[in-house]
């Protein structure tokens, strides 16, 4: 399990049946009503307080990385672009820290390939992408290869726990 070790996370880290139920239920459509947690809790047969406590714990333990609206920023005039870099092994940590310091970097993964760092840039405007790429190249001294999406065939936002 080199992945789990490298990410600093135990796989399936001690999730009980209720946590799993909660993770699956909360990936659905969270209700837009005054007391949405109470509504979801009731559907699961939980008290609202227990749901909130478990949700907080899952976020704190990084089992969930976020809870809220997922914006398709392109629809609001912004841009998301996948980009990759070939980072020399000895420089990897330094470059990862430099890249991650940009708030425009929404997520970043290490992958097994000559192109070993893959990240997604999210900016409020399309020009922001080119500016951020230039700034990352200046900060790291390495070229950035952008892979903008030309067509989206499918995006599934849910993973069964």
């Amino acid at each position: 399990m080199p992945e789990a070790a490298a990410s600093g996370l135990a796989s399936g880290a001690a999730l009980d049946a209720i946590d799993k139920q909660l993770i699956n239920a909360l990936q659905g459509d969270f209700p837009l009503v005054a007391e949405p947690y109470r509504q979801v809790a009731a559907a699961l047969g939980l008290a609202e307080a227990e749901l909130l406590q478990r949700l907080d714990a899952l976020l704190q333990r990084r089992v969930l990385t976020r809870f809220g609206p997922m914006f398709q920023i392109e629809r609001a005039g912004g841009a998301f672009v996948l980009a990759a870099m070939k980072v020399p092994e000895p420089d990897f940590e330094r470059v990862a820290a430099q890249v991650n310091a940009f708030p425009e970097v929404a997520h970043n993964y290490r992958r097994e390939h000559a192109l070993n760092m893959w990240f997604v840039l999210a900016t409020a405007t399309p020009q922001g992408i080119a500016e951020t790429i230039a700034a990352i190249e200046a900060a790291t001294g390495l070229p950035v290869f952008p892979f903008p999406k030309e067509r989206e065939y499918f995006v599934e936002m849910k993973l069964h726990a």
Partner: protein
Amino acid sequence: MPDAGPELDALDRRLIVATQAGLPRVSRPYHAIGGELGIDGDEVIARLQRMLDSGVIRRIGAVPNHYAIGYTANGMSVWDVDDVRIDELGARVGALAFVTHCYRRPRRLPDWPYNLFAMVHSQNREEVAARVAEIAALLGAACRAHDILYSTAILKKTGLRIAG
């Protein structure tokens, strides 16, 4: 220009900035956000509903860490597919139950000949490889080469953070 999306006003943008890091975990989260922005909770709900309907919001909910919920093998499969057939085949690859994201992207020749990206998450690499073999069978002769890039660490996963 249907893809340009709906007009968002300044308040919508403030709402994006206020919620991009997440919803508050309190009984009345939309009212709590409204309190911060100086508007009514019902107005927050109405605006979020409008953004959901227009696709500015894909969905509202939890984003799990793949590793933590047992998907320890995360393979980005990449394919060099005939340009004439890629849209037809990309749609079919995207429709496979185990493919979570599927996009067409530009090649970067000579280093990177791949134009189709399909994410496959599973419990182990053997299972990812078996699923990738299914994609290879579907693409057949239209695919000239492919590779699987496994992730070995999440370096960052915060999501969108645009400035206010």
